[in-house]
């Protein structure tokens, strides 16, 4: 089983978000970067599927050199080799195009992604890649079982879930509880150093959008505390001040 896992290199979920250069650039100062949490689920499931079925896991990131430690972590978790398309991931179409170009040549049985990246939260790249490759795409996928060339998928829908039967190959955007996040062990970390990380240049540089500036939301006002013995006051505030009930 030949699996491609696409990972993002994103600020840790506890990061304080700030911008520099006249609000045109993300401020990386003091920010810890991680594998996108949803991508981490996809990778964890890929590792389990490899344990069950054998095969190979390739991780793919479209990003600049500062992604490399994040990619090494994916190798330490259990991917066999990595590809980095050396470019700033400027918009989702650009990224999808790079992924599709790599996937076309790779003969993958399964392309796993996260349901969405946590920086731009588009949740769009898996669908685009599916379309560009002429493959089905599913998201958000909560369960994935493979039997030969067919798969059983559970997909979350608003207010519930549905089960599907599909045939390989396809693209899936993953989320919990598809697998538990895996922490690299010492052996994984050691072996990751010698696993191949191939850097390739982008094939097509078309973009469909560009970001002109960033903004932070206005600061929140101070909280108004209400005494636990006086819940009527809260009701009054909700009704007459906030006017939300």
């Amino acid at each position: 089983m030949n699996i491609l896992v696409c990972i993002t290199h994103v600020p840790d979920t506890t990061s304080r978000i700030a911008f520099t250069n006249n609000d045109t650039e993300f401020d990386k100062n003091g920010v810890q970067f991680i594998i996108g949490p949803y991508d981490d689920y996809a990778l964890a499931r890929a590792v389990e599927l490899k344990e069950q079925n054998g095969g190979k896991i390739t991780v793919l990131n479209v990003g600049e050199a500062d992604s490399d430690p994040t990619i090494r972590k994916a190798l330490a978790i259990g991917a066999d080799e990595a590809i980095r398309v050396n470019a700033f991931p400027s918009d989702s179409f650009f990224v999808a195009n790079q992924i599709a170009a790599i996937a076309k040549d790779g003969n993958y049985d399964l392309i796993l992604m996260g349901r969405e990246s946590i920086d731009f939260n588009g949740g769009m790249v898996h669908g685009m890649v599916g379309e560009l490759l002429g493959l089905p795409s599913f998201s958000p996928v909560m369960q994935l079982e493979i039997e030969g060339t067919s798969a059983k998928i559970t997909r979350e829908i608003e207010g519930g879930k549905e089960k599907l039967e599909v045939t390989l190959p396809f693209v899936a955007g993953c989320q919990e509880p598809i697998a538990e996040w895996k922490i690299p062990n010492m052996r994984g970390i050691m072996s990751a150093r010698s696993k191949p990380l191939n850097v390739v240049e982008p094939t097509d540089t078309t973009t469909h959008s560009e970001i002109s500036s960033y903004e932070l939301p206005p600061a929140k006002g101070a909280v108004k505390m209400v005494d636990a013995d006086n819940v009527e006051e809260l009701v009054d505030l909700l009704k007459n001040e906030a006017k939300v009930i």
Partner: protein
Amino acid sequence: MSVLVFIETEEGKIKKSSREAISYGAALGEVTALALGTVGTEELNTAGANGATKVLHVSDERLNAGLIQPYAEVLASAANHTGAEIIVTAKSSLADAVVGRVAAKLGASLVSNVVSLPDTSNGFQVKRSIYTGKAFANVSLTTDKKVLAIKKNAVEIKQDGGNAGVEAFDVNLEDNLFGAKITSTEKAEGDILLPEADIVVSGGRGLKGPENWGVIEDLAKTLGAATGCSKPVSDMDWRPHHEHVGQTGVKVSPTLYIAVGISGAIQHLAGVNSSKYIVVINKDEEAPFFKAADYGIVGDAFEVLPKLNEALKKALA
């Protein structure tokens, strides 16, 4: 400008977020809305009030389930048929899976989580939410065709439109688009959908166990609210996964979010920071959630909630 809006329905009704998308589209140009599967004509007519001049209806029963490839095919066909320059949809878990394909089919630019009308003074620029609600980006779309997925509760619903004419729209859908077979669907019926809700009441680990959720549900019932929870609560199976709010769960943007027994970890806040008002009830006055709240009560959930529920019932009677 010709605009195509994708309508999602729920139990035969147009979703509130789709009415927001229609209202958004109506501010840009002439709106043709598109509905798929079995829906009553009378219901579709009501899209007119929100600003649609016409509704195309593909009544093919195979589309009753939200299947990604056939939906993308129909959307792209309708966009070509109407010559739409802009395709608008609410951001939802279904739309997310569909519109990437549509954009790729049409060679259109795609921006998700849009929170503002476009600024067309210099090109076509929209504001979108990024970093799970912690920031915004101003994005210019540089292609002729554009797909916009609008963040829920970011647009006021227009109510003063007229009637929309409903027209049948036929698309030839090849069988191979239906390769994915749905074998079962589990869905809470009659509940208010969490991502669509105006008011959300959420419980965390402070509620101690699933058997105590009655106080949350009672309050939600009084307010006509949806119920949500923190991640550990769904991890422990106290509540279903689709109720889990936060960075790795559902992102909500209601007018009122009531958090009970939730500490306010940054990953939880990421899913609720677009709420208009936040009420926090926690027995620990140091709980970080209070810093993100508009109103707070320090107290035991099991004492405060029943009293609050009674007071609300009285006020709303």
